[in-house]
Every structure is written in C-alpha cells, then in structure tokens.
C-alpha cells in the first residue's frame, strides 16, 4: 500500500438491505489502482451486495487505469447480479466510461480460444510428427529430382552459390575441424593408452586410434561441426528469406526454391564434407601420434600400425561415402528446416535449433546404419 497517494483511498459502507457504497477519493492512476482494486474486491467478496453506489465526486484525477476500476465494477455487477450507480461522476469521466460496452466485454470474455486438453495435445503432437515425416519424404524427393535435373543440365545449377557455400562451409571450417580432430585424437589415445598399458598392449593404441578415427569419429565430428556451423546457417538464411517473402518471390518468378537455393548448398556441402573429414582424421592421427611418441614408441612403429589398421576399403567408406552422406543429411536438414520457418521473430531461432537437432539425429541414425552395413559386408 506504500505507493498509494496519501489522499487516495476507498471508503466502503454496507447497510442491512444490501446497499453497498464505495467512496473513492484522490488519484486513480496506474500506481494507485492496484491497491484500490484489491480493497474493492475484498469488500465485494465479503458484502455480496444487491446494489452498489459509487461516490465519485472526490476523485481528483482518473486515468485509464482508474476508468478500468470503475468499469470493472460494472462488469462485476453484470456477472454477480447487482446494480451499479455512479454519483458525482464528472462528465468527461462518464463519457470515457461510456466508451466501453459491458455486454461486448462479457461476450469477448466467453469467446476466448479453447485450450487443448491432454489427449488433444498428444494427438496434435503425433499428427505433427507424421506431417513432419511426410514433409521430409516430399523434400527428399523434390531435392533428388532437382539435383538430377541440375546434374543432367549443369547450366541450371548456380555454380557461383556452390563455390560460395563450399568456401563458407568448407574452407572456413578447416581450422575448427582440425583443432577438434587433433583434440579428439589426443584425448582418445591418452584415455586408452593407460588401460592398455596394464596389459602390455599399449602399442595397439595406434591401431585403436586409427580405426576409431577413420571409421567413426572423424566423419562424425565433422558432421556435428557442420550441423552446428553450416546446417544452422542454412536454416537461418532460408528462414529469413521465407519471413521476408523472398521464397514466395522466387516461386512467383517461376524459379523453384529447391533448385535455386537448396541444391547448391547441398551439393557444396556433400563436396566439402569428405575433404573436411580427411582433415579431421589427419589431425586426429597427429594428436594420437603425439601420445604414442610420448609413451616411448618411435614414429615408424606408429605409422606402420596405422597403415596396417586402415585399409583402402575402410578409408573409402569412412571418408568418402560417409562424408558425402553426412554432408547431404546435414545440409538437407538445415535447408528443410529453413523452408519450414513460420512467422514471427522467434521463428528463425526455432528453425536453426531444429536444423542442428535434426542434422545430428540423422547423422547418428546413418552412423548406426553404416555400422550394421559394414558388419554384414565384412569391412
């Protein structure tokens, strides 16, 4: 009550026949109305009146919040079945009060949107998921068709965008891929060297590091970095274009957004991912090599173990095939989420988050499929 103006108050009086009188005085503004509102509500609750009279002749100042309080008394009267009469209300205040229609407000209060129940929400979610799967499939089809068209007629492809994307997603990512590859190699070799030493098998750290890096970790960390750097960037770029109606502009000009915007990004990413994977592997091997050297093995031993552990099949599948597939998945997910962007300021943020999450999930699923496939192929 500390912020109520010293002269601002509400008096109330109730008689035996259910007549309640409120007398407001002082300033009725945004700072004072909160307290007056609570006091008035409390009196109304305990008195349950049949008629309410409001003495308004001592109101010195009344802004929109004050009018809100007076109007609320009218609304309560309609809801709880008591009449409200204003006495001594200045003409201008009365006019401002009359600007609001009690019936319209009561109707608007009832007409609010329904909130969903739990089964509704579950159904909504499942339907949304199925729709999303459908959109993914449609997008894959559209992307495949557009890519084939572009490959058949290379003139249709926007090569400038391909090279620009290759530079942004590939060349600009070399540093971070190399650093993370190096650190992963270092950490993995160090973590495995100590337990293996207990069995006298520490020389096999080289084999372990080489196989793990080339088969799984190299392609995987490259794909995760791409999802975080480039997948999100594609989603943000296309999402902003969607919000600015640029995608619609392309469509109305007769240009397919997928061919024009998505194919260059996906192709460029598929092209640079194997190269980035090579860099991740190379630096990972350097990292693990440092650990091997530090535990006392010569470089030549390390190199011969790595060469014997990684054959050409593993290298081709681990680097080239996985790189191409992961690059396609990350770029495709980024572009799809960008094209699915809704409206509003938060929409682009949501799209970029979904792009990264989808990209990583797809890469993990593909990694699992590769593991099973390679097992059955005996590679």
């Amino acid at each position: 009550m500390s912020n109520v103006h010293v002269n601002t108050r509400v008096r109330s009086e109730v008689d035996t026949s259910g007549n309640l009188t409120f007398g407001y005085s002082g300033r009725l503004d945004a700072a004072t109305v909160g307290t007056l509102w609570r006091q008035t509500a409390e009196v109304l609750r305990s008195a349950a009146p049949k008629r309410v009279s409001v003495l308004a002749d001592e109101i010195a100042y009344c802004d929109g919040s004050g009018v809100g309080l007076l109007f609320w008394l009218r609304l309560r009267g309609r809801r709880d079945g008591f009449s409200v009469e204003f006495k001594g209300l200045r003409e201008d205040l009365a006019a401002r009060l009359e600007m609001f229609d009690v019936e319209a407000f009561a109707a608007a209060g009832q007409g609010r949107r329904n909130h969903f129940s739990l089964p509704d929400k579950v159904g909504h979610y499942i339907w949304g998921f199925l729709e999303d799967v459908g959109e993914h499939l449609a997008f894959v089809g559209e992307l495949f068709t557009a890519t084939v068209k572009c490959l058949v007629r290379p003139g249709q492809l926007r090569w400038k965008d391909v090279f620009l994307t290759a530079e942004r997603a590939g060349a600009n990512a070399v540093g971070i891929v190399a650093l993370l590859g190096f650190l992963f190699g270092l950490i993995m070799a160090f973590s495995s060297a100590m337990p293996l030493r207990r069995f006298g098998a520490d020389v096999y750290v080289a084999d372990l590091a080489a196989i793990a890096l080339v088969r799984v970790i190299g392609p995987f960390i490259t794909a995760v970095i791409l999802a975080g750097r480039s997948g999100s960037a594609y989603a943000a770029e296309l999402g902003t274009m969607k919000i600015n109606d640029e995608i619609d502009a392309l469509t109305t000009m007769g240009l397919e957004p997928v061919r024009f915007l998505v194919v260059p990004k996906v192709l460029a990413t598929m092209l640079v991912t194997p190269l980035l994977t090579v860099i991740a592997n190379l630096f990972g091997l350097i990292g693990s090599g440092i650990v091997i050297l530090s535990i006392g093995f010569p470089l030549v031993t390390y190199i011969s173990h790595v060469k014997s552990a990684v054959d050409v099949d593993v290298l081709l599948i681990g680097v080239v095939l996985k790189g191409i597939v992961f690059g396609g998945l990350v770029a495709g997910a980024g572009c799809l989420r960008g094209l699915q962007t809704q409206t509003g300021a938060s929409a682009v943020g949501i799209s970029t988050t979904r792009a990264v999450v989808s990209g990583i999930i797809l890469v993990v699923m593909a990694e699992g499929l590769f593991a099973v496939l390679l097992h059955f192929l005996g590679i």
Partner: protein
Amino acid sequence: MSTQAGPIIQVEHVAAGYHETVILEDISFQVAKGEVLVIVGSSGCGKSTLLKHMIGLMAPLKGKVLIDGDDIVAADAEVKHRILRKIGVMFQTGALFGSMTLLENVRLALDEFTDMPHEAADLIALMKLDLVGLNGYGEYMPAELSGGMQKRAAIARAMVLDPQILFLDEPSAGLDPVTSAGLDALIRSLAETLGMTFVIVTHELASIFAVADRVIMLEKEIKTIVATGTPQEMRDCTDNPWVQRFFHRQAESRVTH
C-alpha cells in the same frame, strides 16, 4: 485545437546525425500539452531520427531535448525512468513482441511497473485493445493479424500506462484509407478526451489534415525546419517552395487519380 498552456516538450538547438554525417542542424521547437504535432518532410530528411532523439534512443550531437522540464539526454537512471513513464512510443513496424499474445504485449508494462492484480491488468489491457477496435483479439499472436491491426495493437501497448505523450512513427504507412482514417479518428479522440500530447511522424497528407494541430516540416537540403504552422496555413503558404511542393504536388496527384 485542444492545447493547454505550457510546453511539455522542448527541443533546443538540436543537431543530429550518424557518425560523421550530420542530418539535422539547429532544430528548435516546443510542443504544448495536449497538442497534436505532426512532423513531415521528404524521405531521408531525418523525421524518424528526430523522433529517436525526442524519445532518448539517440543522443544529439548538439543541443538538448526536455520532456516536461527534464533533459532526456543528461538524465540519470532515475530521472530517465520518470521520463519514460510519461511517454509511449509506437514504432513504424509496430514492434510487437512476436512470442506474446496481444493481451500479453499490452499488459506487459502493467505487470512490470504496477502492483495491479492479474484480473485488473487483464481488464485494463483489454480496454486499451477495445479503444483501438481490437476487442476479442487479446488471445491472438501478432503474426496472426494484419499490418493495420498490429499497428493499432502497438498504439494500445504504447498507451497502457496512460502516458502524457505518445510518439507515433508513421502510424498510417501501409494502411488502407479506411483503416488509416479510423486510426486518425482514434488519435484525435484520445487527444481531445484524454488530453494526450501526440508527436506524429508521417507523410500522409490526408492524415496530416485529419489530426494535426500544428505541422513542422523538415527539409533534407537545408537540414532543418523550413516551415511550421497549422495544416491549412501550410497548404496556403505560397512563399516557400519546399512547402508548396510537398503540400500541393501530393494534393494535385490525389485529385488527378
């Protein structure tokens, strides 16, 4: 004209610009309490920049802006807070918060700056929406509404704490003539019934004649005010080529359409 005595805004010898580029030089004028002042001028003449200086978003290169006697640039945090409680601003695009419903947008200031119970804040916000013709739209998200509705909701948000001054940046740009006329009528009625002061940036000739008590015209070439007066005085002004060009060429093109 519903003006009362005494200026509520004083702009004194303000020079404004971005980095090295000076856009406005030696701008001085006053706005009286309850007055509807319209700032006009060709594109790029610095109307919105001047508005940003008046609401304290930009500091002038020279001069000062006083709101109800307080210097908005030199003000410490407490004074600035007091000044900001006296003003409401509607930005050109509406600038509604996209993640909140209209009701949440409008009641935000009530929640943050007053101790009103939930029911009170809801009702007062709904009443403001009703004032701008948006009764029943409280639960809508801004993205679900048309541009005109968003602008009207932005006005409701700007005036939820009953500020003494409302600054409106191009309120009728991009609106159809009917919605635009409705908005003009709303501004006029708020000025007359609540005694609010308005500073409006616009280049809609019809709106200028519908709402303005006084017009200030800025000119890009000389970077300052070229003329000031009632809309009628500006229209009838014959000795100023910039004013003539602005008020007559537009008027002529409207007639010929």
